[in-house]
């Protein structure tokens, strides 16, 4: 018995039946859309060298959107799929729609909707992830725990494999879709996600090392290697010494780069040209002559060695696409020049006229170079090697200035060699500054990016290690 139940998720046929059943309950005109999602997660958590929870969870979520003529949008979410529950939920959504109805306005003017073909090329499903047995999960954890235990260290960690499915269906009158109900059917889509991370600490708590990786494909995660890395980092980070905060040349491991990029990447989803509202790093200013806001599109914003792009068919990335999204690669920043920004979609239907939507990067790949981390260290007279960042907070939306902490391994480099572990720092720095002060780049690799929420879709990233000048550390943090 493997503990893997083949029927953990809704199948395409089940989704279809379910969606049609709900639509059949929505009578009397108006618009209806139903979204069915299901998810399953197999999880294993350990602390102090012992597994402290192994679990298997699943849930379903059915969202009913209903709008009668002249009415507003009624939304009800439930996880019970029997006829009575669904009839009741559909009626409830309709009652909510009716609450705000005004006589005589009709649906208003609706624009012609472009047609989109569903995107099916993406690599987001892996049987290796979905079929990973409870035994294999436990063995993977064991492969990370055992070496640490042997050395008298304490291993903690978490691994998770998940699968999810989603489908949406609406009524037969696409012409009536407008405003917030301007949706496109999401055909049955399924995806997997796997992630694993581990922290190894010594018994006195004077050293801590971390390693982690995520992918839609469990086979892409070498757990023993992760355990090894966390262990080595723990041993090498013991008894750190305090050094003065200040500006340092830093060698940022790919995870640290990705952690800081999380401040920048969401800003690429901003509407262009940015008007009023939230501060944006991509706003150039108000053009009095033209009477409009100008953005930095077409301008060089970071080092010319940097390209940030995504390709939904990239088997190393694996991103979930929605039907309206541009079904091909997008370059957000190309050779340092800002080339694309995301759109708001529901408000832009008329303008789009059959063009695809740019949602902004949900996953991305950043260009790298050929310098290895060892070479970066060897060419550094004095600097710091950073494992990862934690507790990051944005301080200024316009410059993307952020603050946060180094965590799980920080070392001083002197004369081309790692000389000693040092105590953690708080940094105050912007990813834009980082990307404009690059000395050297290494090979881009996949990093650890946990998916959002239960059954949520992944946000993968492929980033290089960077050697950056004058990175600003503002205070000492003596936590380990």
């Amino acid at each position: 018995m493997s503990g893997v139940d083949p029927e953990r998720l809704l199948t395409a046929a089940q989704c279809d039946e379910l969606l049609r059943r709900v639509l059949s309950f929505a009578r009397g005109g108006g618009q209806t859309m139903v979204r069915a999602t299901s998810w399953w997660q197999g999880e294993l958590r350990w602390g102090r060298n012992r597994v402290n929870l192994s679990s298997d969870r699943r849930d379903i979520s059915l969202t009913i959107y209903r709008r009668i003529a002249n009415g507003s949008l009624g939304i009800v979410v439930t996880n019970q799929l029997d006829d009575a529950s669904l009839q009741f939920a559909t009626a409830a959504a309709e009652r909510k729609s009716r609450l705000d109805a005004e006589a005589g306005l009709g649906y208003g003017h609706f624009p012609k909707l472009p047609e989109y073909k569903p995107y099916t090329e993406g690599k987001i499903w892996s049987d290796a992830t979905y079929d990973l047995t409870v035994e294999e999960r436990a063995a993977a954890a064991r492969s990370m725990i055992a070496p640490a235990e042997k050395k008298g260290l304490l291993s903690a960690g978490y691994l998770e494999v998940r699968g999810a499915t989603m489908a949406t269906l609406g009524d037969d009158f696409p012409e009536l879709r407008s405003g917030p109900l301007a949706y496109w059917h999401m055909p049955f889509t399924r995806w997997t996600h796997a992630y694993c991370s581990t922290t190894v600490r010594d018994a006195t708590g004077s050293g801590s090392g971390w390693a982690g990786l995520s992918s839609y494909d469990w086979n892409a995660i070498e757990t023993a290697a992760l355990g090894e890395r966390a262990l080595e980092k723990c041993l090498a980070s013991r008894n750190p010494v305090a050094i003065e905060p200040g500006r340092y040349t830093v060698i940022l491991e790919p995870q640290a780069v990705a952690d800081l990029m999380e401040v920048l990447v969401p800003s690429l989803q901003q509407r262009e040209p940015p008007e009023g509202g939230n501060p944006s790093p991509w706003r150039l200013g108000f053009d009095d002559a033209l009477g409009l806001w100008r953005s930095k599109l077409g301008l060089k914003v970071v080092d010319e060695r940097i390209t940030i792009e995504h390709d939904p068919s990239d088997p190393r990335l694996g991103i979930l696409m929605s039907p309206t999204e541009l079904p091909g690669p997008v370059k957000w920043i190309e050779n340092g020049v800002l080339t694309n920004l995301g759109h708001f979609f529901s408000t832009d239907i008329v303008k789009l006229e059959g063009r695809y939507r740019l949602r902004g990067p949900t996953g991305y790949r950043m260009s790298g170079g050929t310098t290895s981390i060892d070479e970066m260290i060897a060419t550094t007279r004095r600097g710091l090697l950073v494992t990862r960042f934690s507790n990051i907070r944005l301080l200024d939306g316009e410059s993307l200035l952020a603050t946060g902490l180094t965590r799980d391994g920080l070392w001083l480099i002197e004369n081309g060699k790692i000389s000693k572990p040092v105590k953690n720092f708080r940094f105050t720095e912007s990813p834009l500054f980082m990307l404009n002060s690059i000395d050297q780049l290494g090979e881009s690799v996949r990093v650890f990016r946990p998916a959002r929420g239960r059954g949520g879709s992944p946000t993968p990233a492929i980033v290089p290690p960077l050697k950056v000048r004058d990175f600003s550390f503002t205070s000492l943090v003596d936590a380990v």
Partner: protein
Amino acid sequence: MSISRRTLLKYGMQAGLLMAMPRPLLAQFGDGTPEALPPIQDPRVRALAERALEAARSAGASYSDVRLTHTRIREFHNPTVTSIADLEDMVVGVRVLVDGYWGFAASPVWSPDEMARLANEAVLHARISKQGTPREVDLASAPQVTGHWSMPVKIDPFEVSPFEIVDYLQSLRNFVIRWSDWGQGPNSCSFVVQEKAFANSEGSYCTQRTYRSEGNFVIQLQEKRRTVATGWLDALTPAGMGWELYKDQPLRELILKLMEEVKEHWKLPPKPVDVGRFPAVCDALTVSRMIDMTLGRATELDRALGYEANEGGTSYLNDPFNMIGKHEVGASQLTLRANRSEPGAVGTVQWDDEGVRPDEFTIVENGILRDFQTTRESAGWLNHARGNSLAHSHGCAHAPTALDAPLQHTPNLILEPGAEDLDFDSAIAGMESGVAIRGLNIDMDFQGLNGLGTTDRLYEIKNGKKVARIVGAGVLFRAPELWKGLRALGGRNSSRRYGTFAVKGAPAQRGYHSVTAPPAVFDQLTLIDVKRKA
């Protein structure tokens, strides 16, 4: 969009219908035929729970527990009926212990067959986790409990017409925007009711109905239609209450007071940060966050022992067994108590998620560390270290729904007030030179040790008066020095209770609790220019 009177009259009937929406859900009992979901106290729910326990026992579990939860959430985002979100779910989770290893399985199906499947699945997980390595779990003993408890709320928010709630929010908005220099920021609220049945293999069975209500209300001071300062109403933080969270508070008076404060704030001359160390007066909200993020986090026993190392981090109180009763964590006037029984607090329950009736306990007494927050398993660790069985769980096990396995979460915390009749204003009046801090937002490191706080409402004090608002400042502190530098705490009348939450574990889960604290005066806090790079 507001609702016109006409619409109200026209659809008053439907509003009545909406009240009871979107029930009923179905469950399967006995022969597996779907039936309408009965109240949680129904004996058929217990029969379902027993089915899971029985299956776990026969599969070889030495201990098992099961939770069934039915949760309803209703959210209002800026007051229109068009923006009400209704969510409802029914889930069940079975947790088992086999040879010291925990297994857990959860799903959305309430039926006898599913109970058995989940129990077997959980046992399988626990067995496989063992892999030949011994692990000991000594659950601290807990008395068998039975019964039903319903959180006493005055007005069940799900019995109130959503129209009434929308109207009420709209009236608060109108109250603000009728002045030309005031605008309305976010104005939202949400209500949660959860029915939960808990059963364990030691014979306990209890059912509970709990509520959580909260609101977010922001006003904006405007000059030439541009917002120059904002004020957040701090009276609506999460609470174990119903609609009375809004109805029983003098909200209009509180809003007027907030307007005065924001105006006074804006009139003060702005001043850049003078980097350095200053005596400081902190308001109750700031102190509640400080105590929550430092000692509140650091005294979670699982965290202190490294079980949370790969997620939120560990604790600066890193040797719990030797620190209890000896370690000085703060000044002698620092006393921190915990409970899950305060009426109106958001962490309040009758039984925790292990069926334990939580007790009131003292975490810090007169500056000395007295205790850690525990569950049945972690109280067992204390017993193991001491070689006795005197420690019992403080009832801190919690999971947001039955879909999550219980973890130790922070209970309600109470920082004991000072003996003198001091409050925020009188503390400022008594200060010759220093700073006053309100509503500090705090980022703590992964051991609850070093903090950075930021707030717009930071003032320079000279001769007992606010003379300037300090712009762009950050407050740096280190927990041990912060609490050892505590000079005075506000009196009983100055204490305030705020609801908050903390995220913990993997997969991450949220636990809610209240923190009650008075304002405080500190010897010195470090001010930095938060946006200044090195």
